[in-house]
């Protein structure tokens, strides 16, 4: 293990000070630890170390070593490498560390390593109960975050179609991560649930698009799943007395509600995504009924009738 770490520290020290792109060949015969007997052994070792450095967030890039672009070499630009010191006070560092401990992103507890680049973690505050768990596949969310920060284009499968998107932002709401961006083929801003993305790929090119001025991801987000869509219905639903209290908590603030003597509640509100709306109503089984429009009543019935059992 010592050998690996020494070699990588030597490589990083060299790349940070050399001030020009250096070829793999030059690294092999200059940096201590890389002088391998065969080309293949060197190549394997170097590839592994490169992946490791990139995994640590070190911006190791390829650039031509000469004007004619005959040969390419590796470069770490010190300006790009160095963290801009956010200048946190001890109190701020402690507050951030506490937040990292009580909030879980991606299921794994956050270790003190998260704080190393900020001057280390203040004495650990053990025994703090968990306050929130932002469940997610951390690799995917981190890749999207990287794309948002770099203004890199993304491509992924969603509802069986391939989408090409310029990601403007990332949001966590109601227990899910969403990515918000411009879907290029239709030139419209769309919201996608991250756990439904498949085969995500992030473009190499930085600054591949311009984010519209004044764009705010929180304004583009919708509160309820049935509000995210491009259809337009005004629905009326009756909720029986024993579920009305629960439904009222989830209705949009603008919903017009009326409570009958038997305690049942009738509510009218707009719906932009009928599939999500029907899914929500089905959750109440027979304690809720779509009264209007007839079209969505029919859709619910056809949806239910299609359920297959053995």
């Amino acid at each position, binding site marked *: 293990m010592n050998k690996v770490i*020494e070699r990588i520290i030597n490589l990083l*020290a060299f790349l940070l000070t050399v001030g020009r792109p250096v070829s793999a060949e030059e690294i092999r015969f200059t940096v201590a630890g890389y002088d391998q007997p065969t080309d293949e052994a060197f190549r394997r070792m170097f590839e592994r170390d490169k992946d490791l450095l990139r*995994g640590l967030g070190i911006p190791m890039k390829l650039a031509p070593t000469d004007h004619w672009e005959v040969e390419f070499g590796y470069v770490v630009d010190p300006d790009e490498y160095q963290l801009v010191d956010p*200048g946190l006070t001890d109190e701020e560092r402690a507050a951030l560390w506490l937040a990292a401990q009580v909030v879980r992103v991606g299921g794994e507890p956050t270790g003190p390593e998260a704080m190393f680049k900020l001057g280390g973690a203040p004495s650990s505050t053990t025994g703090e109960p968990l306050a929130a768990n932002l469940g997610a596949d951390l690799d995917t969310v981190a890749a999207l975050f990287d794309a948002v920060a770099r203004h890199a284009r993304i491509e992924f499968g969603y509802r069986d179609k391939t989408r090409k998107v310029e990601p403007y932002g990332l949001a966590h709401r109601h227990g899910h991560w969403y990515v918000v961006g411009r879907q290029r083929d239709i030139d419209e801003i769309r919201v996608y649930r991250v756990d439904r993305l498949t085969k995500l790929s992030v473009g190499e090119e930085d600054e591949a698009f311009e984010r519209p001025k004044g764009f705010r991801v929180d304004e583009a987000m919708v509160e309820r799943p049935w509000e995210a869509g491009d259809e337009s219905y005004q629905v009326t639903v009756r909720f029986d007395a024993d579920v009305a209290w629960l439904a009222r908590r989830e209705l949009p603030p603008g919903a017009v509600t009326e409570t009958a003597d038997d305690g049942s509640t009738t509510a009218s509100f707009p719906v932009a995504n009928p599939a999500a709306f029907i899914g929500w109503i089905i959750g109440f089984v027979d304690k809720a009924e779509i009264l209007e429009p007839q079209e969505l009543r029919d859709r619910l019935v056809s949806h*239910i009738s299609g359920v297959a*059992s053995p």
Partner: protein
Amino acid sequence: MTSPRTVKRLRRILGMLPYVIAHPGADIAEVMERFDYTREAELVDDLNLIFMCGLPGYGPGDLIDADVEEGAVWVDMADYFATPSQFSPREALVLLASGMALMSSGQAPEALHTAVQKLSSALFPDAETSLVVNLDTEPEPVATLRKAISDRQPVELVYSKVSTGETTTRVVEPWSVFSTLGNWYVVGHCRNADDKRVFRVDRIRDMKILSGDYEMPVQDLEPVVEYTPNEDDVRATIRLGSSARWVADYYPVVKKDEDIIEFYASSPATVARLLLRLGRDATLLDGPEVATELENHQRRLLARYRPQKS
């Protein structure tokens, strides 16, 4: 692949170095605490390793100086490591998202707000408009539960079970309230069951704080919300259509095949409701209890929508 232990050690070295370079003669205890060293020997090992590294030539003038003298840590001749490296997207995301989540819960100290602000502007200027982490607005009972916890007072809950809808009144000694996957939960000792229980806050229909007090357990505050199958559970085998594949990632299931899962739940109604929501996107392959419940749900729902006969 480089071993995770090696990566972990390298990360710590690259985090510790800038701190020690910026604080010549730093107190060894302080360095150990900040960078999570449990034994002095570990830190000394790392310094000895750094002492072997440096720039090509690798003579006395090229190698890094590292030393511990009378409890003080010194590193010299390594100015290129004086600034920590830029955050990887993953590191930045974890810190920012944890901070923002805690802020949205209204439980954050002022120092966290300024810490997150400083960190976002150091990382990238769009951060504040492109990343939003919102825990759901705390439902009303959360504040009351927090108060009960801090006063160590038991609470009486009128609670509707998620799976069956059955309403019961229970006396609970609450230990902690937290949010996960978009729902708020309270975990505590349920006196009716005389055991540890987890309750969903949005299913608390009514509650009051009782007089008297209780003992908070010293350990075991870690709530387990992830569902763990037990022998009383119902089991169902389900085939997922392509647009229902998310179920396999979202629920704790056992994957049998690319599109076939084994689903466990405490009640057949839970599985039946999910299947109703999925409609044609899922097929129940096996699970007699679930099949009965599914037919029952289906019948009840259709009965409600059957055209009214005059």
